[in-house]
């Protein structure tokens, strides 16, 4: 009897341990997903009994202008943000992967944007993107002092080249980004620029303040982009998003960088590879599986971008910021008019399918994917 009881206890143990999780998972995910699928074939409006309408919702969606805009915005956003944030995260991680004093504090400082909530970040960015905001002010400064900055940069590159070429002519081992020379060039270029400015040879330009509408505009950027141009408010959200998620992915890359065998770099040093070559031929291929992860997480995250659109709200025209996720929310809770749950669900299913497809395509192209399974 005792034995039977304890064997029953052992047999049910997994289910009992899983039960609290399964309760939520089945009701709030499984059931919800199936019901969304069902709603997408009905004309449900949150109150009356749903009627089966077949694939009418899906057909209507593709006729609707706002949905097409949302789909386009979502895709542009996902592709641009994922690409840029992956590149930045990798580069940042390479810079951060140093064994120098205090690196921990820098890492912490960089990670700050990733721990704060979307609402806080978006509010601060909305303040910065005002017409008379920080971003426009910085652009104004660049416009006014552009000449001086340009002169400084020209001298910086010129002096650096001069120094490196001189060493190369003497056939000494030297890189184009020789750190000592860069510091020397910065100092020299700064002195020359200062002297030129002091003598009044170069002057800040008397330009008007930059007055770019970042949010309240229907303009598209880049203006030469033609069909690939996207609304400027969406661009503002892109900047914001890249800024917040790059540090998260940098952490992933950092962990990966520490696993690369040092021998590879030492061998490359013996062969006389430059820093860029090492980055391209060793670091990038060795981090392939992390890149897969970063791109996958990036795509999943960017395709469901919602918070920023909701928070910016009426500060920007709806067509300029709307994404698929927001379209779903907006159709289900439109405020004044009747909820179109059928349409919302259909759009939601399309969003889900899109996410899965994009991840799948990515998986096929990178030839990776074991990581996600085991």
């Amino acid at each position, binding site marked *: 009897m005792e034995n039977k009881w304890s064997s029953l206890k052992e047999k049910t143990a997994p289910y009992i341990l899983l039960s609290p*999780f399964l309760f939520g998972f089945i009701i709030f995910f499984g059931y919800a997903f199936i019901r969304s699928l069902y709603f997408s074939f009905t004309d449900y409006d949150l109150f009356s009994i749903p009627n089966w309408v077949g694939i009418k919702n899906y057909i209507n969606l593709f006729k609707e202008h706002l949905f097409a805009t949302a789909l386009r915005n979502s895709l542009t956003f996902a592709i641009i943000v994922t690409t840029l944030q992956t590149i930045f995260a990798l580069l940042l991680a390479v810079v951060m992967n140093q064994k120098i004093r205090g690196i921990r504090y820098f890492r*912490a400082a960089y990670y700050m944007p990733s721990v704060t909530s979307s*609402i806080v970040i978006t509010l601060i960015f909305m303040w*910065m993107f005002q017409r008379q905001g920080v971003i426009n002010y910085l652009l104004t400064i660049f416009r006014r002092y552009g000449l001086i900055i340009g002169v400084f940069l020209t001298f910086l590159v010129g002096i650096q080249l001069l120094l490196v070429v001189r060493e190369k002519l003497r056939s000494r081992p030297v890189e184009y980004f020789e750190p000592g020379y860069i510091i020397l060039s910065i100092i020299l270029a700064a002195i020359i620029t200062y002297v030129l400015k002091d003598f009044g040879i170069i002057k800040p330009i008397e330009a008007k303040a930059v007055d770019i509408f970042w949010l309240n505009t229907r303009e598209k950027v880049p203006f030469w982009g033609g069909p690939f141009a996207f609304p400027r408010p969406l661009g503002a959200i892109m900047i914001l998003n890249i800024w917040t998620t790059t540090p998260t992915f940098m952490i992933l890359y950092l962990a990966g960088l520490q696993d690369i065998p040092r021998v590879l770099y030492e061998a490359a040093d013996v062969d006389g590879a430059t820093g860029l070559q090492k980055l391209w031929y060793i670091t990038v291929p060795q981090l392939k599986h992390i890149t897969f992860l970063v791109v996958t997480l990036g795509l999943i995250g960017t395709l469901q971008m919602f918070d920023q659109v909701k928070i910016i709200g009426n500060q920007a025209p709806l067509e300029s910021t709307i994404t698929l996720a927001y379209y779903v929310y907006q159709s289900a809770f439109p405020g004044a008019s009747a909820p179109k749950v059928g349409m919302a669900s259909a759009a939601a299913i399309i969003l*889900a399918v899109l996410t899965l497809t994009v991840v799948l395509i990515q998986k096929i192209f990178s030839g990776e994917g074991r*990581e996600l399974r085991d």
Partner: protein
Amino acid sequence: MKIQQNYDNDVNLKIKRRRWMNVGLIYLILLLFSVLFMGTFLFGAISSLKDNPGSWPPTLKTEQLSLKNWIGAYKLARQGGGSGFFGELKSGYKVSLEVTYKYPKGIEIQPPQIIIPKRFKGTGRTALELDREFTADFVETKPAKEIDRIPEKDGTQVSYKVIVINTSQKDFSELPLDLVVPYKVKFIKATLFPNRIERLGMVQSWNNLVSGVIPYVFHNHFRVFNENYSRSTGKRLFTTWIFNSFFICIIKVITTLIFASMAGYALARLRFYGKNTLFIFILFSMMIPGQVTFISNYLVLRDGIFGLTKLFGGGSLLNTFTGLIISGLVGASAVFIMKQFFEGLPREMEEAARIDGASTYQIFAKIMLPLAKPALGALTILTFQGVWNEFFWPLVVLTSPMDKFTLTIGLLSFKDTYASGTFDWGPILAGAIISALPVIILFIVFQRYFIEGISFSGIKG
């Protein structure tokens, strides 16, 4: 031999110098990036102290951060009978402000006109206190007294003393002041720099002369707390939101820790029917956006979990914390993290315990959980951060009354509260900075766990 040694020294020196240069350059780059990532926050935080963060040009110069004004605010608050750091205007006390103007040639020198304005606190829907007493009705002012006159090349600098006396029996918490001078007269300085200079420099306006140093510096932060009252209970909304957020975070952290480790252990080590299918579904759910499932979940809460809770007398679960919590007891990603962690642990101890006759529950509670401390630490931090920052689901579930909001949804409502034509960025920024503080403090203290958490969920995933 000697030459060889010299040569070696030379090379060593060069290598060393090169390494130092390298380190210097890296620090330079790191600093530049710090400005990019931290600067935004710091700039936001500093600007949240300003009277008008939306002013052009946006500079770092902030009157609220100047020592001179701190001393001024301290002095004035002491004169009013307060402590200096937190001030007030007590009955019978006298406050005197020194102010200096420059009168250009050709403009008659006359003392500024003194007005004690009657101002409502807050703007728009926040200005609810209608039956307030105004300090202006109870205090006396004397005409400004000239105390100094310095002739200059193109005009005259004149200093005045403005005196306000509280002749009533009451104590007041604030003393606003406006000084009006003729056109073209230039304001030079005062004991306390005015909060606003309006009408082409003719009006210098102070919000509160006797605020004391701390309310003076954190003017906008105090506004966030003091200007938002609940219409139903009269409580301070912002404080309520902070408590709400903390409450939900703590409950969810506890449920997540318990349930995720239970489920994670079962998935990692136990054999049961449908294990692989379940795991695939978990991965699947992690890719599906919340917007796909929220309509059904909304309905489930509205009808009280298939109408079951209604049978027991409970109503709709919308706008309740029960609803918000029950729908997110434990996330799939938390289970995933715990599963990955348990799989990485060695099996020997477990097997030894099993041979000794321990049950699954005993093994889980006595052996596995103590081993899982680092993962649980990381999960605590990640869950707290995730719940504190959660936006979409609270937005759907909590719509009214405002007492039920979490901090994120509350902050969103600030966008309406402080927008009348143009944004009043002061309290909006202040609210944002305050609500970011707990997570930032948590991050600074438990930095290691954050980084580990990311790696747990990422690398092993």
